[in-house]
């Protein structure tokens, strides 16, 4: 499948801004996310990787160690480990130690269920490990509606354990939704209370996120609220460069303000497939597999997909927009999974340029590891109505015009 338009190859400029250099890619990624497992004890509604069940073809412990060796050779100084829930892998702590021993720092994302007092003490004892606790509501009501019953309490327990162990500046990672944007100050207060750093990231219509996107993505006035809040809080709040599409409001947000997919960012999934970014787990954005000859290094340096992504966007409607230099057309994955053209506006374009576009058929997912039976910590409905059916097919509005903010009108003003 070739959703990507071929871009003309141009030569890397000498000197100039870093962001221009980054568009042409680096010899190794700066931000590598490694989803260690699709297994998860939860069933979050918006899971980017549609996690739940372990994939039987998961990389073995030895394969994981060989990959860490390769990261070390490529001088990938740190990696972000996620899942699924990485701590459910029996060899998780062993792999963590192995990475640290091989000069590869780790930040791992967890729901916190397994960060007990003993683990917290071990984590606090090493410089090379950072922990990121997922929290999608500043109250149990808002959080558990997305993440599942008891998950708010579990996150708080983990944070208490880490604080008591003397761990400083661990991260609290929040996916911004329609329901938690009114809670930004409360999130900040929670982070301050635990001596943690707040990290806000963007909801993406990827994985199961596609099913709840229309219900959960921030409303236009909330985008403005978020932007103003981020500007007011500056680099005290981390964003992983998540919100560069909001830079079109005016002043650029801290960070690179660039889509790094395949250029400075990539994702390795539990079976070793390499994707352009963590929000693009789809065959269209698969560059190769670490098990192939030449390993990860060869995939990163020579895959056709990545070489193509390392060319600046030259065509399309966005390049004619006055805000293009600040928003760069927004998020590739958000466009792809909402059926928008990749060289057009982001579905959440703050100039409203996506509203008048016809949204094509959203692509089917390439993989799904969602739990099929009941889950102990299932999401607790708030006002959300997940549209996934038991068979795993995507429920879509009968007409795109009924619910989509992308096509006609401004449904949020009447709802």
């Amino acid at each position, binding site marked *: 499948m070739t959703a990507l338009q071929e871009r003309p190859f141009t030569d*890397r400029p000498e000197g100039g801004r870093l962001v221009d250099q980054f568009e042409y890619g680096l*010899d190794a990624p700066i931000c590598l996310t490694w989803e260690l497992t699709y297994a998860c004890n939860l069933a979050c509604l918006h899971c980017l990787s549609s996690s739940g069940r372990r994939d039987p073809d998961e990389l073995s412990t030895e394969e994981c160690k060989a990959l860490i060796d390769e990261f070390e050779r490529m001088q990938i*100084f740190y990696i972000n480990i996620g899942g699924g829930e990485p701590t459910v892998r029996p060899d998780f702590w062993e792999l963590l130690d192995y990475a640290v021993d091989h000069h590869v720092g780790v930040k791992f994302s967890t729901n916190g269920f397994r960060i007990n007092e003993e683990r917290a003490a071990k984590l606090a004892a090493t*410089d090379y490990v950072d922990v990121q606790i997922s929290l999608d509501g500043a109250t149990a009501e808002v959080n558990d509606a997305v993440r599942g019953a008891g998950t708010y309490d579990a996150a708080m327990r983990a944070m208490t354990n880490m604080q008591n162990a003397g761990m400083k500046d661990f991260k609290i990672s929040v996916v911004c939704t329609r329901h938690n944007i009114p809670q930004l100050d409360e999130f900040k207060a929670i982070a301050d209370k635990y001596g943690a750093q707040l990290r806000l990231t963007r909801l993406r219509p990827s994985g199961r996120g596609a099913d709840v996107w229309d219900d959960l993505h921030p409303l236009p006035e909330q985008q403005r609220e978020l932007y103003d809040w981020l500007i007011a809080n500056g680099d005290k709040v981390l964003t992983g460069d998540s919100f560069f599409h909001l830079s079109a409001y005016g002043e650029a947000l801290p960070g690179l303000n660039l889509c790094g997919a395949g250029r400075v960012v990539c994702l390795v999934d539990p079976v070793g497939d390499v994707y352009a970014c963590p929000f693009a787990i789809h065959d269209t954005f698969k560059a190769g597999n670490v098990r192939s000859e030449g390993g990860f290094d060869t995939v990163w340096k020579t895959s056709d997909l990545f070489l193509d992504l390392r060319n600046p966007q030259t065509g399309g409607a966005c390049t004619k927009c006055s805000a293009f230099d600040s928003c760069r057309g927004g998020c590739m994955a958000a466009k792809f999974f909402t059926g928008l053209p990749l060289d057009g506006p982001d579905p959440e374009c703050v100039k409203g340029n996506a509203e008048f576009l016809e949204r094509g058929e959203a692509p089917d997912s390439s993989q799904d590891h969602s739990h099929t039976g009941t889950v102990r910590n299932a999401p607790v409905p708030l006002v959300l109505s997940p549209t996934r059916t038991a068979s795993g097919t995507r429920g879509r509005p009968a007409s795109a015009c009924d619910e989509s903010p992308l096509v006609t009108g401004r449904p949020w003003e009447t709802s």
Partner: protein
Amino acid sequence: MSMLTTPLAVREEGAWQLSGSVELRPEPFGALAYDFHTRRLSFLKSPALVAVVHALSGCPSVGAALDAASVTDAERPTYLAALQSLAAGGLIQERAA
């Protein structure tokens, strides 16, 4: 200039080296510098500056490192300023000459 009066000023006659917790990764535009203690990533935006930084530890002085990397007299103030900002960020540290 205040730069010359601060104790950590990078002068041509001083001896410096890459900090122990910092590693450089070469890139087409220069290099990435990562400090494993502060977990901070920085960017050296010219291959010539990277050459100077690499030369620091093997040279008796900053001036010798600039010579080793073929930095001309006219370019020296620019390179000294760049080294000064690396020093301010803790990426290079002074050592006994």
